[in-house]
């Protein structure tokens, strides 16, 4: 399955429906895991666990894969693994386009009017705090 095109800082939704040999949705013996590879076959993410999507959804799992600093523009392959009677390994593909920011977007911002100037404190998707000040010192 092809998951489309993204930029750094985006999240790639990797949805896995685990099935038995007859394609009937079936819970696996353990949560699926994924490994991500570059176009050169270099391993990027190792055995990330894929959580269940919702309640009462037999065999439905989703991992929102954040495209942080370990990614760059290029094409990637995701190899998932799960076991329903036997091991199964579906493949997914996506592309990272140039642009975006490996820190993601701001998920919180606060403005402070201080003596030293105007401050904006923000928290990015990666959890980093950034402080922007005007005027600059």
């Amino acid at each position, binding site marked *: *399955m092809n998951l489309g095109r993204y930029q750094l800082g985006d999240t790639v939704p990797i949805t896995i429906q685990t099935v038995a*040999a007859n394609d009937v949705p079936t819970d696996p013996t353990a949560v699926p895991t994924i*490994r991500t590879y570059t176009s050169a076959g270099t*391993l990027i993410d190792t055995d990330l666990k894929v959580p269940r999507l919702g309640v009462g959804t037999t065999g439905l799992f989703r991992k929102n894969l954040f495209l942080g600093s370990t990614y760059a523009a290029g094409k990637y*392959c995701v190899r998932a693994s799960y076991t329903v009677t036997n091991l*199964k*390994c579906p*493949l997914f*593909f996506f592309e990272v386009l140039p642009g975006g920011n490996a820190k993601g977007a701001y998920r919180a911002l606060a403005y402070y009017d201080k003596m030293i100037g105007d401050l904006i404190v923000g928290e990015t998707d990666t959890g980093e705090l950034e402080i922007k000040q005007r005027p600059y010192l």
Partner: protein
Amino acid sequence: MRQPYDYGLVELGDAIPVRVQCATSADLPEAPDAAPTFTIYNDANAAMSAYTGTTSSQIDSKTGFYGASVTASGGNGFESGKNYWVKWAWKVSTADRTASGTFTVT
């Protein structure tokens, strides 16, 4: 039933990685007798002989996980706006196995 892999889009002249997970008809990963080979077909169902070949070695030591890189250049016979099929073939104990994938040149 296994669906064909969708490798996505590639700009004319760029390389696109193609991957395959060798597996049984029940999707159980299996080790082929030798690295799988692949043939690319254009939308007129003609084989592009320049890209018939053997893939790289097994990726990440994962059973049956192989790949190759295809340079979708005009010099190699690729055209913008066309769809292409990748047919994978391998053998397990002399029994033939196949898988397929597709990509589009933009």
